């Protein structure tokens, strides 16, 4: 039976989405003032661009950090691969709330890093690390990295390693074999992973609120704030802007990456 799933999706996803659209433009009469407010006040625009910037940086950092990790795992013997993937999966299972809390413990004034720094005599007073932009990046990358590694790994595990050997036999150097054969084939998975990480980052809420400062709030935090102040119409407008921004960025990433893949697999000296 398919209909129970469809009923759930309609009741808890489709109808609520339509209600968000309705609340954003009817309050109580047809109005564009909620959207106008998002796009004309510098403070909201700031949050909008920051959300996109942070998400793009987190996705890029995850992609770069995860690629060698996935490559390392994929080259291990099969049993070892499962064990290593398990290590990557363990943090992925933990709730984002607990993982953000863990970073508060590590980076806090009397946290682990400060205790270590002061114990080693590297600093006299605690260094401010918690409630900074840097802390947001460190925590968000740690939270989303496993998703990128797993996506990247599953794309790489589909690649026939004999192709690399064939390239070597045909006279390619080791680096050339990677660049002309492995990289273009694995890039698709990397980009898919980066897009997933980007989309998840765009909705991040807990981590910026817990480890970031007041200037690190993202669109999701803004939505919560507006809901608490009972500005539902405005919250709905922000939510739609968040979705539209996400879709636009994903389209741009896809377009750019297609060109990148084409440039990498074609061209260059033989």
């Amino acid at each position, binding site marked *: *039976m*398919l209909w*129970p*799933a*469809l009923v*759930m*999706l309609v*009741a*808890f*996803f489709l*109808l*609520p989405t339509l*209600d*968000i659209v309705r*609340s954003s433009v009817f309050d109580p009469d047809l109005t564009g003032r909620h959207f106008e407010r998002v796009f004309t006040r510098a403070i909201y625009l700031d949050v909008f661009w920051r959300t996109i910037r942070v998400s793009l940086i987190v996705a890029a950092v995850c992609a770069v*950090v995860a690629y*060698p*990790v996935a490559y*390392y795992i994929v080259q291990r013997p099969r049993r070892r691969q499962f064990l*290593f993937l*398990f*290590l*990557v*999966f*363990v943090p992925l*299972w*933990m*709730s*984002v*709330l*607990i993982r953000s*809390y*863990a970073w*508060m*413990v*590590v980076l*806090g004034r*009397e*946290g*682990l890093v*400060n*205790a*270590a720094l002061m114990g080693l005599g590297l600093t006299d007073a605690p260094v401010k690390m918690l409630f900074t932009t840097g802390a947001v990046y460190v925590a968000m990358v*740690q939270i989303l*990295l*496993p998703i990128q590694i797993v996506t990247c790994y599953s794309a790489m595990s589909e690649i026939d390693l004999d192709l690399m050997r064939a390239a070597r036999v045909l006279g390619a150097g080791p680096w050339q074999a990677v660049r002309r054969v492995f990289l273009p084939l694995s890039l698709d998975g990397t980009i898919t992973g980066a897009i*997933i990480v980007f*989309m*998840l980052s765009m*909705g991040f*809420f807990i981590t910026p609120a817990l480890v970031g400062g007041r200037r690190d709030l993202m669109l*999701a935090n803004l*939505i*919560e704030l507006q*809901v608490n102040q009972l500005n*539902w119409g405005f919250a*709905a407008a922000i*939510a739609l802007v*968040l*979705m539209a921004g996400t879709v636009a960025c994903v389209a741009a990433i896809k377009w750019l990456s297609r060109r990148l893949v084409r440039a990498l697999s074609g061209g260059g000296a033989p």
Partner: protein
Amino acid sequence: MRKGMGKLSRFLPAAYFWLVILYLLFPIVIVLPISFSNNPFLRFPPSNFGVLWYETYFSDPVWVAATVLSFKVALTASLLATVIGTMAVLVLERRQVPLKAAVTYFITSPIIIPHIFIALGVFILAVRLGLEDNALTLAGAHATIAIPFVVLIVGAAHRQLDPTFERAARVLGAGPVRAFFSAAFPSLLPGIAAAAVFAFFVSFDELIIAEFLMGEQETLPMRIWADLRLELRPTIAAVSSLLITITTLGMALSEILRRRGANLNDD
């Protein structure tokens, strides 16, 4: 010289890999020792070891009520998502469905939608219908965000099935329902159980939908969230350590089940 290079080129990737694993696991592992400190504040290194904060957690009716509510909601959501998701997989994998790709895409779409968006929509709609602050509404919303995972996990298990068993059962005279339950369902069961565990934790860990929807009643993540914003008391370290242990055990079990299911079908 060349030998040295070879050693280095083997050592560096391994060192990099373990460094990343350390980065991923370390902040989680570090919470465990703190939870056994009897100090009233978070401080490194922890001293004065004991189980004070576990006692505080288990004896505080607010924390216990939040935990019980989260369990109830997560069990309901997991049951709903597992049954509904599995039924959807059986239709999508076995029958001709018009617009199959579009339907699958629709059912799995909540996976990539920010929870804050779903939370806001469900909240606004629930308020209009007078269904807010209702544990069943929350369980329904949680089931909906868990269904995509059930569809993916059970769907993968279903694609590993060997259809010859079921065909043999049919040839031997079993009806379609009986053939399914005697020949296919047992091999599907580990995947379904894995999906149920996963769905449970999707709900059990979920904060933002609960935060919007619930008022009087509090789930465990809501309680943690409220406490974290006020002060960093080690009660949370105790709760976190319990959650870390339970999640790891539950998910490891789910992973073993899934793997065993896959192996069964390989043979």
